[in-house]
């Protein structure tokens, strides 16, 4: 028998593979595609929010102190935040197992 790779039985799929629960892409982890993760140096950060605005996956959210922090559950490591940070406060660091 080949290894079972299916997530769910074909019999349980809605017709046309419709998704009946709106907004369930929130549950879809895309962070495991990442090779590099953004690391913030809070000493350099001026809380300007460029990373928050430019992140194509809307990963950045402000924490209680007002720093914008990337949610690594979604972050695919594209590095746009690091490239555009005016203070070079974000460094892309290789993910290690």
């Amino acid at each position, binding site marked *: 028998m080949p290894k079972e*790779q*299916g*997530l*769910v*039985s*074909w*019999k349980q*799929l*809605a*017709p*046309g*593979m*419709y*998704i*009946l629960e*709106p907004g*369930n892409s929130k549950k879809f982890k895309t962070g495991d595609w990442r090779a590099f993760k953004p690391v913030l140096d809070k000493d350099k950060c001026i809380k300007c929010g460029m990373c928050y605005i430019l992140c194509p996956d809307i990963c950045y959210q402000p924490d209680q102190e007002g720093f914008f922090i990337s949610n690594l559950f979604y972050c695919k490591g594209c590095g746009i935040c690091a490239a555009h940070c005016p203070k070079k406060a974000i460094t892309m660091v290789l993910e290690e197992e």
Partner: protein
Amino acid sequence: MAKKIAKEVSVAVAEAVAQCNVDVISAYPITPQTHIVEHLAELVNNGELDAEYIPVESEHAAMSACIGAAATGARTFTSTSSQGLLLMYENLYIAPALRLPIVMALVNRSVSAPISIWNDHSDVMSMRDAGWIHTFAENGQEAVDLIYHAYKVAEKTLLPVAVNIDGFILSHVVEPIEFLDQTLVDKYLPPLKMKYKLDPKKPITIGAIGVPEIYTEAKKAQDEALKASYKTIVQAWKDFEKLTGRKYLPVETYQMEDAEVGLVIMGSLAENAMNAVDILRTKGKKVGLVRIRLWRPFPLKDFIKAIGKVKALCVVDRAVSHAATGGPVGIEVRSALYQSNKRPRVLNLIAGLSGRDVTKEDFVEIFEKTFETLAKKPSTPYEIYGVKE
């Protein structure tokens, strides 16, 4: 019973679509489909049909608009031919995969190059594997009846249906047509109610990504749905028979009971072939005809039963599958035979390309060629019939 009215088949098809109370028509004119969409546009313009007619910029958009409209629960119609179908191509796979009950009148025409507006089945065979239900009309009355049937089936199975109508040979011919009374159409075809549809009040996602962990399961579900549609298709014909007295089966036979040699064909050429059967029967030759009306889902059991005890079959294809092991129908038939214990000789001829006539005399000759295979196996898997050397 309604009386028969002389109508051009294209106009009759359009009127049947209008009787089905279609909500959205989205089409781009192309020969030989033109009269169907022209007439529908006229009906909408004159206020005789309360539908949205979307004059799209291409066939790609025509199918896209049908997909979008059907996803909101609208009853949709489109029609095309040849290059138009090919321009729809990527969307042809999407409609069945998203389980959208779109009905298309596919007025069959050959595909370029060389450019040709005339009839054969090379356009439809290009979408053979897309997952649509396909029926083939033999005459104008059947084309009209298959439109009513298509809506019934599409909406019960949530699969798109293509009604194949031979270009010019059927589409542009005036025939006596018996329409269903509107009350019967309404009885046969209740309003479309889709359990799941795009509705802001109850949002769902249609057309999401199928990652490797789910794509196989999605395709299995789609495949099972198309296979299961067979029962609905047959039942819809039975219901139609009760209303009209006109009986339709997935595979039709003519003089096959004691036939030694049978001919397999789809579409309008079957009527010429039938004449050839009559000619040969008067000479005592045991010949018969098998006409496949339902092409997808392929009615395997009906087909195997229909061929009876023939010793040889000739499959007449109207499209080339270049350098394959046969024409599309020929390949299908040989594969179907392997699912059974029957092993007749199979001669596969490709004939009637781009509207070239295949007369009853031709069919007599084709039958004679098929008799020859009883003594000597065909030397090639398929051959193009009537080609000038």
